[in-house]
């Protein structure tokens, strides 16, 4: 055992000497929530957050690498150090802020919306699908409607299509392209609900230095309008900008 540890130690020492200067920042994302993040045809992470993240890394002069992780375990894997940031359309909330830290928002507070398969649904008493551990799921649980939770956004929409739920409650920007494509099978029902404090990058609470770097980069992107350009590119003309 001792030999084993010493062996790995020697290996690690040589490795760390070689790259001591450049630390790679690993960016954790879900890859299943277009337009925020998704896997493109080539099998790479793509979307609004991919472009924002790459630009932020360039401005902060960091080497970044993209990593996919299930939404369910995205926070535990951050705090145990498997990657260094969460950039996955995660809204800034007080509950999450107790466990991890957030940068300032790079996406303004947005509306969440209900999508159902028929008009005239009373969303206050309906069966509503939402993704587990999202602010939308929390909202539905408190609203008095019956909440059914799913692990992925795809499954929440599928639940409405096959009648398991009356409506799905999610970010309006995620639902909009699906409604547009459904040829009338899906439609927005009920009022939009403004939720959350905007979307920010999640970091470990002990990682203050990295947070400051990303914060500064976000400020600079807001300042020169490049963030707004990306918002319009991915979310269309009407989207709220800075």
């Amino acid at each position: 055992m001792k030999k084993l540890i010493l062996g790995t130690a020697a290996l690690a020492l040589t490795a760390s000497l070689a790259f001591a200067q450049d630390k790679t920042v690993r960016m954790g994302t879900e890859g299943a929530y277009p337009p925020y993040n998704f896997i493109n045809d080539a099998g790479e992470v793509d979307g609004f957050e991919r472009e924002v993240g790459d630009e932020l890394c360039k401005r902060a002069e960091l080497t970044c690498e993209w990593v996919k992780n299930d939404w369910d375990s995205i926070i535990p894997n951050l705090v145990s150090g498997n990657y260094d940031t969460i950039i996955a359309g995660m809204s800034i909330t007080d509950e999450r802020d107790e466990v991890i830290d957030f940068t300032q928002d790079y996406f303004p507070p947005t509306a969440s919306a209900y999508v159902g398969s028929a008009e005239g649904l009373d969303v206050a008493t309906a069966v509503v699908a939402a993704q587990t551990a999202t602010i939308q799921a929390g909202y539905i649980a408190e609203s008095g409607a019956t909440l059914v939770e799913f692990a992925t956004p795809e499954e929440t929409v599928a639940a409405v299509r096959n009648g398991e739920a009356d409506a799905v409650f999610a970010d309006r920007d995620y639902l909009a392209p699906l409604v547009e494509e459904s040829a009338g099978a899906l439609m927005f029902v009920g009022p939009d609900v403004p939720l959350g404090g905007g979307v920010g990058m999640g970091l470990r609470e002990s990682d203050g230095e990295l947070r400051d770097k990303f914060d500064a980069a976000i400020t600079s992107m807001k300042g020169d309008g490049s963030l707004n350009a990306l918002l319009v590119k991915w979310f269309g003309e009407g989207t709220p900008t800075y």
Partner: protein
Amino acid sequence: MFSYCTDPDTLGTFGWFSCYLTTGVHMSFYIAFFKVLLLLAVTAPVALGFGFIGAMAARGRIAPVRWLGKTYIALVRGVPDIAFFLFFVIALDQAFEYMRHKVLCPDWDQPIRQGSDFIVCQSAKLPLGNAPQWIHETYGFSLAVITFAIVFGAFAANVLFGAMRAVPHAQLETAEAYGMSHRQTFWRVMVPQMWVYALPGLSNLWMVLIKATPLLFLLGIEDIVYWARELGGTKTPKFTAYPHGDWRMWYFLFLLVFYLAFTRVSEVALERLMVKLTHGQATSGGEAQRKAAT
């Protein structure tokens, strides 16, 4: 992949599918099949090794060794797989990093646990933070093999423990009467004869192991079930050149066929192995073979 794939909207059905099924994401899907097969190929022998050691320990003559073996079997068999996978892998990973941290960064003065954060120095990270993604994936894969081996090793240990006791006692007594030592009796008489009793249990385990591979995704490895879910999901034209509706059913149907074919092949192979092992044994199967031969 093909040159005509630049504008998929204009293609006929066959052309469209030939392009669709060869995109980068689909390649990842196909590679995931090899990952699963590789995992099985590596895990099965390692788990059998764990099982053998566990069974030997459980019937050891030294009390603490026996306790250790029995505790291993009882503990791992009693804990739900999914809890084991979620807890154990993170704990194992942190244990490795903790050891490396102690060795590599002796002058580190901050606590390792800060609230919910687990922090070790940069050079103690496993794999190193700046390692390429494939090293991270290989590391995750190794953790998966170890975890699978420990879980299935416990079940295998229980099967082998029973099989060792099922070897007719007269055989062992005869061996002793011939003056064989305890060790010789074990290796020359018991072990060669126990497999015929162990095989039904072990083949069950193998089947369960085949179907347990989707647990891989809990360990952050993108296995075939993950990709089937991801690829089958609704795709809107805004984000892909190959939009389609909810095709998860077809992808899962394909997985169903894959798993069924795989278990069928295993069944045939295990059947043959059973015939081979039965040969010359003092069991009803062995007796039947002897009669058929004469």
